[in-house]
């Protein structure tokens, strides 16, 4: 029993430490509980879809997919088009999704193909891949749109006549999902429809794990060689997992941006991978294991910290900027820490495993 408790503590060291930090910092920050709860509702509905899109590649043993920025870019391209065509409201969002899906499938296949060539170092490769595709995205959006790709809406085109402006006002679709069905409970506004969509995604993930494809992915995630020798098409399945993740991320980015209401054409996607991954890691996920509770819990912890730390910093040291940098530090630091812990723990486990095996053999031979 005691052992179990200890194991739980060790396995969840990251979320527990962060939780303690937050609990300590809430009173210092002087933010009211009501404000925090409302913020959490908003941020959960805004970010969950993106963070959840990370889960499937983890199941397939490909680590945390920084390649979701590829999906985010696809989503943004969808949004640029509907803004250009002036398709508004629910129709606009749905059309943006429809446009972004084929793009994200393409990018996902490309990403999966690249990651298959970098087995064992998928994460760093997916980061660089994100940077690389970002360059291509810039090429298309900044130089191609309005030039090669016709654009009609002068409002989103740079004054030089081509290229999309830095910021696009998405007021035509702003919070369309969030306001579609709204529930007011006391002082809180709950965007029921968005939460429903997220719920459907959660169900999808639960269901997906139980399909043949999901089972294959789990098998590949645990041991690629054995999966291969049992006849599972390893490479293809890995590509599929990245495609699914990328498509989900594109939808996630659209949900994210409809909530925010403006889009920074060249920045909105950049931080998405990092923030989503930091969130899921804070929630206790590792590069080899990630669940829906990890994702949702992680978002709450990460964003609580996000809101609180600048305020706490200001109250404590008199500088909001320090809190701000502290927040950045935590975001990056937590990824580093979680990865180090994971790798180290896995090594320890392997060692323990070997030791156990050896002892068994020794005592077996000794009888």
């Amino acid at each position: 029993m005691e052992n179990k408790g200890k194991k739980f503590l060790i396995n969840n060291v990251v979320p527990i430490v962060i939780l303690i930090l937050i609990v300590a910092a809430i009173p210092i920050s002087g933010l009211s509980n009501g404000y925090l709860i409302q913020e959490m509702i908003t941020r959960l509905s805004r970010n969950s879809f993106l963070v959840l899109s990370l889960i499937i590649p983890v199941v397939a043993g490909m680590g945390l997919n920084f390649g979701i920025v590829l999906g985010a870019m696809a989503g943004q391209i969808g949004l640029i088009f509907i803004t250009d065509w002036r398709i508004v409201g629910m129709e606009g969002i749905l059309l943006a999704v429809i446009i972004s899906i084929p793009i994200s499938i393409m990018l996902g296949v490309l990403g999966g193909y690249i990651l298959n060539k970098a087995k064992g170092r998928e994460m760093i490769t997916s980061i660089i891949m994100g940077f690389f595709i970002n360059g291509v995205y810039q090429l298309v959006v900044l130089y191609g749109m309005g030039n090669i790709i016709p654009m009609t809406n002068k409002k989103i085109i740079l004054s030089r006549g081509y290229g999309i402006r830095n910021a696009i006002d998405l007021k035509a679709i702003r919070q369309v999902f969030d306001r579609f069905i709204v529930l007011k409970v006391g002082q809180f506004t709950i965007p029921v429809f968005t939460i429903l969509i997220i719920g459907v995604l959660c169900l999808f993930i639960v269901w997906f794990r139980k399909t043949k494809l999901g089972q294959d992915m789990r098998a590949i995630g645990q041991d690629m060689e054995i999966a291969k020798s049992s006849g599972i098409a390893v490479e293809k399945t890995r590509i599929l997992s990245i495609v699914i993740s990328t498509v989900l991320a594109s939808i996630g980015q659209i949900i994210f941006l409809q909530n925010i209401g403006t889009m920074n054409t060249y920045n909105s996607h950049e931080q998405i991978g990092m923030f989503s991954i930091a969130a899921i890691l804070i929630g206790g996920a590792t590069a080899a294991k990630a669940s829906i509770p990890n994702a949702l819990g992680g978002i709450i912890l990460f964003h609580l910290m996000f809101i609180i730390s600048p305020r706490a910093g200001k109250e404590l040291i008199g500088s909001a900027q320090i809190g701000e940098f502290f927040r950045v530090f935590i975001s990056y630091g937590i990824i580093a820490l979680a990865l180090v812990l994971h790798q180290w723990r896995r090594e320890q486990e392997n060692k323990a495993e070997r030791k156990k095996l050896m002892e068994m053999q020794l005592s077996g031979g000794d009888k």
Partner: protein
Amino acid sequence: MSELLLKIENLSKSFGENQVLKDINININKGEIIGLVGENGAGKSTLMKTIFGMPVIHETGGYGGSIKFEGKEIDFHSPFDALAAGIGMVHQEFSLIPGFEATENIVLNRESTKNSFLEVLFGDRIKKLDSLEMEARAGVAVGHLGVKMDPKTIIKEMPVAHKQFTEIAREIERENTKLLVLDEPTAVLTESEAEILLQTMKRLANEGISIIFITHRLNEIMEISDKVVVLRDGILIKEIETKKTSSHEITEWMIGRSFTESESIKKEEKDQEILLELNKFWVDMPGETVKKLDLKVYKGEILGIGGMAGQGKLGIANGIMGLYTTGGNIVFKGENLPLNKPKLPLKKGIFLVSEDRKGVGLLLEGTIEDNIAYSAIQIKDEFIKKYLGGIIEWVDEDSVEKNALEYIEKLEIRCISSKQTAGELSGGNQQKVCLAKAFTMKPELLMVSEPTRGIDVGAKKLVLETLREYNEKYGTTIIITSSELEELRGISDRIAIITEGKVAGILPPESDIIKFGELMVGIGGTNG
């Protein structure tokens, strides 16, 4: 019961010029257990690979003769063809997904699924798994084995025996499995576990499944097989009903008497000063585990270590050098040698010429001369020249080259120059470079593992002669580990046979070869 299942006729296979199998004829009836025995390199695994349709067979030009399965000529291009036809194989290494339940492993990639309307759109793989059905199937398969185990256990948390059972259950769970190949299934099991497995095999055979049972434990063969097939040097020596033979006879067939007794140079008895002593020594080297073994090495002798592959003979030297996790006790020159510290044995004058020349023995991208000098530079600070009054210590390339040239001449290393990279050399010359490296270190105890593996006859002779010469000239104690008994008998003063991680016995080289064989197959006495 005498229905013919597999018929192998005039099967031959060669890799390049090397004939590995020659005119093999075997008949296997339904429900029969065939014991397949032979020394390392006798052709057992090639035979199995051929039957199982491993791609390597095809890539190297296919095979001659014919294999008929259920009366039909077969020519599998991949193991999946073999599986589909009804041949299952359990390899020596587990191929189970560690985090899955036994059930999931048993039905791996053959899971039962429920139909789904999405199937039309996304293909078969979108179907949901039918876990009840899967459990039922796994239950039935495990039931056939006649063992008690919970199919819901996670593989990671299972005892080894259960993993083995899971593997077998997976093979027989295929609806049409008719022939099962078990490659050393008892090697990792304790005696009592092995006993259960043997019972299971009998049960399966009674149910009509034929089994090819590969093992080095002759008593197991005697116990359960209907027929024994002995291979030696790629030739089928004997195919005989088990009843009609004895383990002694089988050993004779395996080892063969055809050797010309190699002339062994006897030395006069020296005073038996102990140089190295191993007590309850164990080494966790994957595939070559050493299990609490005791061994004494006398000063100035050449000790041969032999045994079948996978029995742990290679683990000893690697363990002494601290390259794998080690336990027990090493006493060298009367002093306790701390374990798992690779630098210490080197400093004390022990050196290993590794069996893994390319992986451990050499820096393939490094030049010959660098390779030879490397250890001496790192351990003994040799070949270092001081510049500017000792501020800068650079490697003295001239003396490195001089040393290398000396050995190139002495050992007849064939190379363009001493600056050639080691990776470009042939196997034999690489081995000579490894020896040169060892000699440069001037060790007190030189361990050489598989010194002649993969090198041509001429080089082989030279390597062995050099070792013997070195031993005589400098009085260096040498432990030579080899799979080739003949070679050990030619050079050693004493030969220890390692079986299942322990010393099965130590014999003088001129002992009857059958004695060695019996030690290897675990039926000889134990006087370790």
